[in-house]
């Protein structure tokens, strides 16, 4: 047994949401311990490495050497490969920068450490400590030694595969239709366009898409997400991706130098993200945008709020659920409406036939959309393919 520790705020997981939470809690005067079960923050990478950029100044992140490429926009390819271009500003939270994700995570951890956070690697949470229903810390294991960390506020930032939320008692389970199983190769010797992040829709990736995120000339992340409820046999995401690559000459001659997998939640927002002494944030709180699969921006935005509320709660000596609800209200005000709307859109898109995708993208490519919103998209579709509009009546 190691000796037990005491801290104001314990953050479990040192991804972007964890580091942001930790940094902002420390900046507001709390003592903060952030634990990470891996030996290296940010590695191995589990990410397509695309992110939008307009939110970065708001949460205090400066672009650094983690930026690979700044893209102009996105290209959406329908099943018959009709293309629709969208400016980066309107293209959702996966488009703006293509990043070196391990460098990004390390930079955020450095920012947290420099703000006063104590960081411990090779330190995993193995259980939650409770006192009369209230979370009062976690049982952790560092280099094989088990000890208790007592915290006024405990934050679960343990990513898609989150367990601490469920250990604490917050239901973070997701349905099969609300998860994509993802696989990606980093490929060299490919003919990619560094000006765009590309997305291929339809039956090539049921309930998801194939993405090409350029890392440099000739180098790109080529990946796929497939909705788990549409998977019929073992290793289907890999089969779909390999088939797609084989059918695209710009990529079929490429050479794989890296392979990344992972789960992405495409679920509606959680009903509950706080309880007495405990909050959950980022992918662990299912804050990933269900339409784009992007989680970094939302995790960081929520992390700033979470850290701020955690510090206030610790200082006031009140980490009751009621006190921590300020975080719940805060992230919902910023993110919830869009998460819910995009979840509805995802539900619809998952049901569209390839023919419908072709028509929608064809209608869009003809118009210069001043502003990309549901109303303008539907108007463009209605003008050219009135019969398709019926599919979207619920959105009008």
């Amino acid at each position: 047994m190691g000796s037990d520790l005491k801290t104001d705020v314990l953050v479990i997981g040192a991804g972007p949401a964890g580091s942001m939470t930790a940094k902002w809690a420390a900046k507001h005067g709390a003592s903060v311990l952030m634990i990470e079960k891996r030996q290296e923050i940010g590695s191995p990478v589990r990410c397509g490495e695309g992110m939008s950029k307009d939110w970065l100044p708001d949460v205090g992140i400066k672009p650094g050497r983690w930026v690979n490429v700044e893209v102009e926009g996105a290209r959406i390819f329908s099943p018959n490969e009709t293309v629709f271009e969208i400016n980066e500003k309107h293209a959702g939270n996966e488009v703006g920068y293509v990043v070196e994700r391990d460098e990004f995570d390390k930079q955020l951890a450095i920012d947290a450490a420099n703000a006063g956070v104590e960081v411990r690697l090779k330190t995993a949470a193995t259980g939650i400590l409770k006192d009369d229903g209230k979370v009062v810390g976690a049982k952790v294991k560092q280099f094989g030694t088990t000890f208790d960390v007592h915290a006024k506020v405990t934050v679960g930032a343990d990513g898609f595969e989150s367990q601490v939320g469920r250990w604490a008692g917050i239901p973070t389970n997701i349905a099969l239709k609300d998860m994509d199983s993802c696989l990606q190769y980093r490929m060299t010797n490919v003919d990619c366009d560094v000006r765009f992040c590309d997305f291929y829709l339809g039956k090539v990736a049921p309930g998801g898409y194939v993405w090409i995120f350029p890392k440099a000339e000739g180098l790109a992340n080529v990946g796929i997400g497939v909705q788990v409820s549409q998977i019929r046999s073992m290793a289907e995401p890999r089969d779909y991706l390999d088939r797609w690559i084989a059918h695209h000459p710009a990529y079929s001659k490429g050479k794989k130098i890296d392979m990344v997998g992972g789960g992405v939640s495409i679920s509606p927002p959680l009903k509950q993200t706080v309880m007495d002494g405990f909050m959950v944030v980022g992918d662990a709180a299912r804050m990933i945008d269900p339409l784009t699969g992007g989680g970094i921006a939302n995790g960081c935005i929520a992390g700033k709020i979470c850290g701020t509320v955690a510090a206030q709660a610790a200082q006031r000596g009140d980490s009751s659920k009621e006190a921590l609800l300020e975080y719940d209200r805060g992230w919902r005000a910023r993110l919830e409406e869009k998460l819910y709307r995009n979840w509805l859109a995802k539900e619809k898109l998952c049901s569209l036939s390839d023919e419908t995708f072709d028509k929608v993208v064809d209608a869009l490519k003809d118009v210069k959309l001043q502003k990309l919103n549901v109303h303008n998209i539907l108007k463009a579709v209605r003008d050219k393919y009135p019969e398709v509009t019926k599919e979207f009546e619920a959105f009008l």
Partner: protein
Amino acid sequence: MPSKKSLHIESSGQLCIYCGACVGICPLNCIYLDETRITFDEKVCTRCEICVKACPVGAIEIG
């Protein structure tokens, strides 16, 4: 009484890429990922096979 089917997670590195997809989707929260080791709780697991589908590379088998 019929015995439970067996679940096998190939996590020696031949198939598994330690991505955690199975951990996140497991409705009973009984799969554990420890860097390059995946274990699951035999007693809690009901062999629902959801993790088999969620695995992007086919490293989980049930039989």
